[in-house]
């Protein structure tokens, strides 16, 4: 079989899994549903590897294949095929998505065990993986948009998975609306591309673009900026990021899969995929890079003060995606995609560990109430520490190599791009602090009552489920983490998933060490042929200097976190009091929600109210009742003739006939 045939199978299995589980939810036992869901993604991953092997059989320059099943739409000069595009970039994304998804399905198999909506959960999860794979494998912009919208829907469905929880349904709506803003950007970009180049097909578009556009022409800049709107909404970059922290209302495996490892990196993939266009619009690329930089700093500062465990990790996700956006926007494609991969490993792992701890806390998410889990949950603590070390870029872990590579590339471009180096390292310093703030607060310190219960009786704390955001009692009918809480220590599938990811988080970076090996970038490089943003390659010496600085900053950050949160637990509180204004500013997330509410939501509501009161009442209602009045008046006249007197009917009939006869007689003579 060829590589593309395997790629079609990659798409097929999750779709089948989703349909089978959805249709068979009455007949299938819980275990079977979970196994089918996990196996479907596992098979998909195997097919992804087969596609990779097929691709490796070709010459590096010839490693791109398009394949289509049938015409999707063929009208008026448009020829859209249901086609996929298999090259290094898409196969890389396929492997990351299916690989991490398999492990997260395995984790969910244990974690969601007592949830009433078990079948629904796996069906949605498989559908999400299918949509994501469609997004990365699509061979033209139309299918890309289809996949893009599908993942938006899957994300919505999974955020509001516990649909009796009002905060969850609200968060789902928010995510969906903001994602639709992004969809509009993407659709408009596709329109412009079609108008200028006459095609939606990747191959054709990327071939024609350098001939049609001159660098920084306004059309190509507009196209790239519209693409960026889509990318920013999906990847939670400023100012379209506010949905991501709220998305943590969904079950923890969802946060792990969709809102950390895969979906939110779709924007990064989009920028990398359309690198030819961005190479023609360096201004747009620079804007993207600066937005990424701003996001990584803003998110990192917020993560320093957030007290909700999952939301803190969510802000860290935003921040790390900021690094990736910077990477792919300054031309460091290999490094950006490498960071995407390592981030998928350690962030999925951190969420899994957080899920395990939240389960042990009986759904309490406030880190102020946690503590001492290092003794209570040894396995979870060790894996969480692995993830945290990778996130904080501790020397020789995966995040250490990937993050510094992006910054080294920025440094090699020099000039204005040195800003990225300086602020990027500052962001890395903040990253190390907030990561180890979580570690010291949650794992270290005095055991909280829940942890003590676990240590002393080996029994997971149980409480009536309550919404962590509002404190309302939960409705467990439609599924909620259920009356039982599942922690990694008691569930083998969860342990397997976390152990594999912990291993990858620690050593995953060793496949790309400057001067030693360069697996990911070498594999991906031919996919980024064609016009490029810059011809630079950081020298190996600079790479290592960057790594040394990065390692030092990471250690410094961890030390700072220790100094703040362990050495003297009163210190953070004292700082809070001293810088009350700053703390409030960060705690309220830079007032982004309030600003969007003031600038967008309220004006939109006011316009809506005005339209309802004036336009609807007078114009639309006027048209409708005017038409109705005319018809009623005319029919009243006609109805008067039907008075029920037989003799008047006869008179009308006779008069009519007489009139007709007279007319014909007169006209004949």
């Amino acid at each position: 079989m060829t590589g593309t045939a395997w790629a079609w199978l990659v798409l097929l299995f999750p779709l089948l899994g989703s349909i089978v589980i959805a249709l068979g939810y009455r007949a299938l036992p819980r275990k079977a549903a979970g196994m089918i869901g996990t196996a479907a993604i596992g098979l998909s991953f195997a097919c992804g590897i087969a596609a990779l092997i097929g691709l490796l059989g070709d010459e590096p320059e010839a490693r791109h294949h398009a394949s289509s099943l049938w015409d999707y739409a063929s009208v008026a000069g448009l020829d859209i095929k249901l086609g996929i595009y298999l090259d290094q970039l898409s196969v890389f994304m396929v492997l990351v998505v299916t690989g991490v998804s398999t492990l997260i399905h395995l984790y969910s198999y244990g974690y969601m065990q007592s949830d009433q909506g078990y079948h629904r959960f796996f069906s949605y999860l498989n559908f999400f993986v299918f949509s994501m794979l469609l997004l990365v494998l699509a061979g033209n912009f139309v299918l890309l948009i289809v996949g893009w919208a599908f993942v938006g829907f899957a994300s919505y469905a999974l955020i509001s998975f516990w649909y009796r929880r009002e905060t969850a349904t609200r968060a789902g709506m928010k995510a969906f609306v903001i994602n639709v803003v992004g969809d509009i950007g993407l659709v408009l970009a596709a329109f412009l591309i079609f108008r200028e180049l006459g095609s939606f097909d990747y191959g054709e578009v990327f071939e024609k673009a350098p001939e049609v556009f001159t660098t920084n022409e306004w059309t190509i800049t507009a196209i790239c900026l519209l693409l960026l709107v889509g990318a920013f909404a999906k990847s939670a970059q400023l100012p379209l990021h506010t949905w991501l922290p709220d998305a943590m209302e969904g079950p923890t495996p969802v946060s792990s899969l969709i809102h950390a490892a895969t979906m939110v990196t779709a924007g990064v993939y989009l920028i990398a995929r359309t690198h030819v266009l961005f190479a023609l619009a360096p201004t747009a690329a620079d804007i993207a890079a600066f937005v990424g930089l701003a996001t990584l700093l803003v998110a990192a500062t917020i993560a320093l003060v957030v007290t909700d465990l999952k939301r803190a990790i969510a802000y860290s996700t935003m921040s790390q995606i900021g690094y990736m956006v910077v990477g792919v926007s300054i031309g460091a494609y290999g490094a950006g995609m490498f960071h995407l991969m390592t981030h998928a490993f350690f962030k999925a792992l951190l969420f899994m560990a957080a899920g395990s701890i939240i389960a042990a806390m009986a759904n309490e998410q406030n880190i102020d109430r946690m503590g001492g889990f290092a003794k209570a949950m040894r396995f979870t603590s060790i894996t969480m520490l692995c993830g945290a070390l990778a996130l904080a870029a501790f020397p020789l872990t995966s995040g250490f190599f990937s993050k510094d590579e992006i910054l080294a590339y920025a440094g090699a471009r020099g000039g204005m791009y040195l800003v990225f180096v300086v602020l990027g390292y500052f962001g890395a310093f903040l990253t190390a602090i907030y990561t180890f703030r979580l570690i010291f607060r949650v794992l270290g310190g005095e055991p909280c009552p829940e942890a003590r219960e676990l240590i002393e009786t080996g029994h997971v704390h149980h409480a009536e489920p309550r919404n962590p955001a509002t404190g309302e009692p939960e409705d467990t009918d439609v599924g909620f983490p259920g009356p039982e809480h599942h922690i990694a220590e008691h569930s083998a599938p969860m342990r397997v998933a976390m152990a594999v990811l912990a291993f990858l988080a620690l050593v995953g970076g060793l496949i790309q060490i400057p001067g030693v090996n360069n697996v990911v970038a070498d594999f991906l490089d031919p996919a980024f042929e064609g016009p490029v943003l810059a011809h630079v390659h950081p020298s190996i010496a600079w790479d290592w200097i960057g790594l040394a600085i990065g390692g030092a900053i990471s250690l410094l950050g961890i030390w700072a976190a220790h100094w703040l949160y362990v050495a003297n637990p009163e210190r953070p509180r004292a700082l809070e009091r001293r810088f009350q204004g700053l703390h409030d500013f960060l705690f309220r997330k830079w007032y982004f929600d309030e600003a969007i509410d003031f600038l967008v939501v309220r004006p939109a509501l006011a316009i809506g109210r005005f339209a309802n009161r004036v336009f609807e009442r007078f114009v639309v209602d006027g048209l409708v009742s005017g038409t109705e009045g005319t018809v009623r008046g005319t029919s009243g006249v006609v109805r008067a003739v039907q008075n029920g007197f037989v003799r008047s009917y006869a008179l009308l009939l006779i008069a009519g006939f007489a009139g007709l006869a007279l007319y014909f007689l007169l006209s004949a003579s």
Partner: protein
Amino acid sequence: MSIEWYIVLSSLLFATGVLGILLRRSPMVILLCLELMLNAGNLALVAFSRMVGNEQGQVFAVIVMVIAACEVVVGLGLIVAIFRRRLPLNVDDLRELRG
């Protein structure tokens, strides 16, 4: 005899029928006047037939008679039904089907 006399007689009969329908209120009389109109038509048909010299007009006259017979059956049936339901035998009072 020339054709005019026949036509004049036919027209007079027809006009009598029309006036009867328009002026009288009893359904019975209206039915009779309808018959009068039909037979005025028949007279004209037969007269024209003799003038032209073939039988087509007479054939039409016979068909009109058949139809008139059918119509009388329906009409009388209606009148009997009205009478049996003790409704007034006055077309001006029977106007429930007005719009």
